[in-house]
């Protein structure tokens, strides 16, 4: 949850087809966690995951962008009109 307000340029991104609000400077992981509890499902067995180290070391928050590129959500900034898929296969289907 957000503890400290951010007064920046508002922007809109799409997560799994749903439009969500964000602010310039938000990390993709922060936006994902402010809008849900899981960030992805593990490739092995499908267990829900939401990142862990929050500093680019554990690699447990990789998601896919609209063009199929994979990014680590905790070290990627949200940018206007970003399309994010938490399931890589859906990103592929929407290429």
């Amino acid at each position, binding site marked *: 949850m957000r503890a400290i307000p951010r007064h920046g340029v508002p922007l809109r991104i799409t997560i799994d087809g749903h439009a969500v609000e964000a602010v310039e400077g938000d990390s993709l992981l922060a936006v994902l966690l402010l809008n849900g509890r899981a960030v992805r499902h593990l490739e092995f067995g499908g267990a829900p995951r939401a990142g862990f180290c929050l500093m680019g070391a*554990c690699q447990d928050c990789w998601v896919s962008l609209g063009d199929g*590129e994979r990014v680590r959500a905790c070290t990627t900034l949200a940018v206007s009109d970003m399309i994010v898929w938490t399931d890589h296969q859906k990103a592929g289907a929407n290429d």
Partner: protein
Amino acid sequence: MTNVVIVGGGPAGVRAASILVEAGLKPILVNEARQVGGQGYRMPAKSLALDLKVLMGSEAGKYRRLHSLFASLEKRIDYRPATLVWGVHDKVLHTLCDGVAGTIPYDALILTTGATDRIMPLPNWTLPGVFTLGGAQVILKDQGCLIGSRIVFLGSSPLLLLAALQYHKSGASIAAVVDTTPFSAKRAAMRDLAASSRTLARGIMYRAALHWAGIPIIDGATPLAIDGKDYVEGVRIRDGRGRERLIPCDAVAYGYGLKPETQLAELAGARFRFDPTFRLWLPETDADGRAGADLYLAGDSAAIGGADAAEASGALAAHALLADFGRPQPETELVRLRRQVGRLRRFQKGLARAFAWPVEQVAALTDETIACRCEAVTVGEIRGAVRAPLGPREVNRVKAITRCGMGRCQGRFCGPALQEIVAGACGAPIAEVGRLRTQAPVKPIPLHAAAELEP
């Protein structure tokens, strides 16, 4: 001119750069993050109405000094932010910046790659809502966000109290601070800790502030499991008196102190020795940070010491480098820095006793507990591999059979536990089961980036 490269933009890297600039060099500073400061002195993302005095407390002055030092250096160094170094080979760094692969040759290399949280697996620790203790602080400082609305701080680390207090001041509800080390062990370590009385006093202050705020601090507890189905709903513990308790919460900040990030040091040729206090394999350096030919290590990636030791050891490494390249360095300053680094690192050894890695929990881990979160390898699979007829007793062979440590994080988070599980399963001393070897890339890179390297 000598091509000096520093990797890491925390206090050690920035300080090393300043010494080199004073000597007339123009080092390259490669930083994986967008901003300098490392994890501890991390700059908030822009437009965040963050009161740094609240968050940094007594360290706010040092935070400001480091960032103003960097501001004075930025034009006089070759600064490369948002650049990952993913490999080192034949005195060339392999990098990735904005999806583009590159190389940086060096004559001398200073590595200040920092540390990550040390983690002991626990049933259900992979559930959404469980984050590292360091991560819980990072998302607050960097993003102004909390990991949940009702939080348990769990593990054993002086940072449990600090982080809990930062969260409390930021409006979070703290369900409890649960420290696995008994209070008696903390009292016993007090004599070593008195070597840095200011830090000790701060710790006592944090404890008192949490107490006044009515936040339960439970010492000497054994964590049994994280409770929940699709996300965290509580933490089950056995308290110091043997009573089982369920503490409801929606997030857990979890950690057992810090573990140096040594992957690049290993690829650059550093040697390692087993440290019985930390129960980790740590890189070998001399007092000034020399780790091999033209290789220098500083900050928490050389030995856990905290931000002050990082700054001082960064300066020492830069002085050592300059001396090795034939430039005499001021001896009195070197003596002062060595004394400071030595004192702060000894203090960390005291902390390692007061906030202990919970070795005794390893034997109690259920077979179903996940050890490797990348590949979902269970403790039982590791034990089974070791106990099979002619089963391996060495962690790299166990990795080859079970895939534990082979995933995207490259064993950063399962490595320390893997050593303990293997040693426990075959009854060998932990130093004899070896340590996970590093492979490039040390972090995931797109295939095309690796392909661009081919001639």
